[in-house]
């Protein structure tokens, strides 16, 4: 049972903000106000087209205290599984979408003395809401934002205009990179670090921070892990009494939803643990692609995060 928090919304504005990035302004269809949220929150957008049902998570980038509309940004991914392609090619002004209420798995730690943000590319989106929130609270922050080129980076001009010298932009094309080691060495005690961007950037930053003696409590990150593609397979849903086909480009969660079975989820990216599903029968090998289960849990073959993980073999029976 997932909590039904869906809100009927309409696309009120589309802006091409960079080469491959569009910003969507979403308003309620009934003209009502939206819940306030906290910086770092995301919503899940439900998309329906000929390909079936698809749900993608997007960070809210509008100000958390703005309740008349939400804003999200979508990067057009070259090898898209369909979500970003749908948003870029099939969504127009006035398109009606179903959007979940906000969920925050990447909040600001309010106990911090200072907040240091490292963004790579489209990873800037959760930080835009966080910076608005911190600015309103008069809190100390600094952003370091790496972009491929001046025309790729979506929001550097807007952010520099708003927050001035606290926003530092680094451009790959100009061969200028974030001086991560130097930044880590010179922060007052009580600083929290937030990193969002490509996996390589997140991993390298976290490793450097641990080596600079930062405790894990001060390190925060968000990976936007899309469900990886793989071979097609079938799963048996014991409680529903169904046998469901999972296509190569589909996740188990998506296939189960398309079959009309309601499964719990929050992040759809292997991070939150909400969709953990008990494995009742297994003849084959599980492919764990999540960041949630411990290594011991993964080898125990007792549960599976159905939003990103897959399976190879003859039979998989799930408690759904």
């Amino acid at each position, binding site marked *: 049972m997932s909590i039904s928090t869906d809100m009927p919304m309409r696309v009120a504005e589309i802006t091409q903000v960079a080469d491959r990035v569009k910003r969507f302004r979403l308003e309620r269809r009934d003209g009502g106000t939206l819940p306030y949220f906290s910086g770092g929150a995301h919503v899940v957008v439900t998309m329906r087209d000929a390909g079936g049902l698809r749900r993608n998570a997007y960070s809210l980038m509008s100000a958390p205290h703005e309740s008349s509309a939400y804003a999200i940004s979508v990067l057009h991914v070259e090898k898209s599984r369909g979500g970003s392609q749908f948003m870029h090619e099939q969504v127009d002004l006035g398109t009606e979408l179903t959007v979940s209420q906000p969920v925050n798995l990447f909040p600001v*730690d309010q*106990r*911090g*003395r200072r907040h240091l943000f490292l963004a790579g590319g489209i990873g800037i989106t959760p930080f835009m809401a966080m910076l608005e929130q911190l600015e309103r609270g008069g809190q100390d922050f600094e952003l370091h934002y790496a972009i491929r080129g001046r025309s790729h980076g979506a929001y550097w001009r807007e952010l520099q205009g708003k927050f001035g010298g606290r926003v530092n932009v680094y451009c790959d094309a100009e061969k200028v990179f974030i001086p991560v080691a130097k930044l*880590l*060495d*010179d*922060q*007052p*005690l*009580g*600083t929290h670090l937030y990193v969002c961007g490509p996996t390589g950037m997140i991993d390298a930053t976290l490793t450097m921070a*641990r*080596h*600079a*003696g*930062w*405790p*894990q*409590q*001060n390190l925060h990150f968000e990976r936007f892990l899309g469900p990886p593609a793989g071979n097609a397979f079938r799963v048996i849903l014991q409680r529903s009494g169904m046998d469901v086909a999972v296509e190569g480009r589909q996740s188990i969660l998506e296939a189960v939803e398309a079959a009309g079975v309601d499964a719990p989820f929050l992040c759809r990216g292997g991070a939150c643990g909400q969709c953990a599903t008990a494995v009742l029968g297994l003849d084959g090998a599980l492919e764990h692609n999540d960041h949630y289960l411990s290594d011991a849990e993964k080898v125990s073959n007792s549960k599976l995060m159905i939003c990103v993980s897959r399976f190879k073999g003859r039979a998989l029976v799930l408690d759904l």
Partner: protein
Amino acid sequence: MRTPAIKSRPVYAGLQVNPHARRTLFALQGEGAKALFEQVERAGREFLTRSEVLFLAGNSVQHLAGLQQLAPHLVRQAPNLDSLLQRLRDDLAIAKMGTSLQVAGTEGFIGQVLQVAMDSHIDAASICTEHRGSLARRVQCVHCKQFTDGVTHSPFACSGCGLGLLVRDHYSRRLGAFQGVNVDAEAPGTAPSLEELYP
């Protein structure tokens, strides 16, 4: 009179030097010095040149020489708890990320050091703590709010209002103290006899 253990009862996992720390601050009280001696045996001496020790000797003055023999970057002996806490507050105010805080001593000492650390925006979960020495507790009277240090018996007479207080395992991290509740509020004169629980 013993009360059942509850979730807020602090757990002290023990000192654990982080080899990556740029600087390690040790706040040690009395027998807590031994926790550092054991760390040196386990982890070697490498971290000592980047370490500073704040020491409140209490009845364990004999450990001061041992601490000085370790030859850390600095050993500072504090004349009393307030002066140690003030020194720590000043150190943390100018400290950088990469500084690790390690605390060992009685529960009352650990609790008050953690209060200073949390005021300095450090997440308590990133601080290593080790309980050494007496089991005596620092207790706050829930009625008059007075703190009593070094409580070894339960029930005991509150140092503020004189009520007979039952010492609970209910612990306030914000106050760094256990909670003491009047033991015979509903039927005065029926208090159980006192027992030494925290020698």
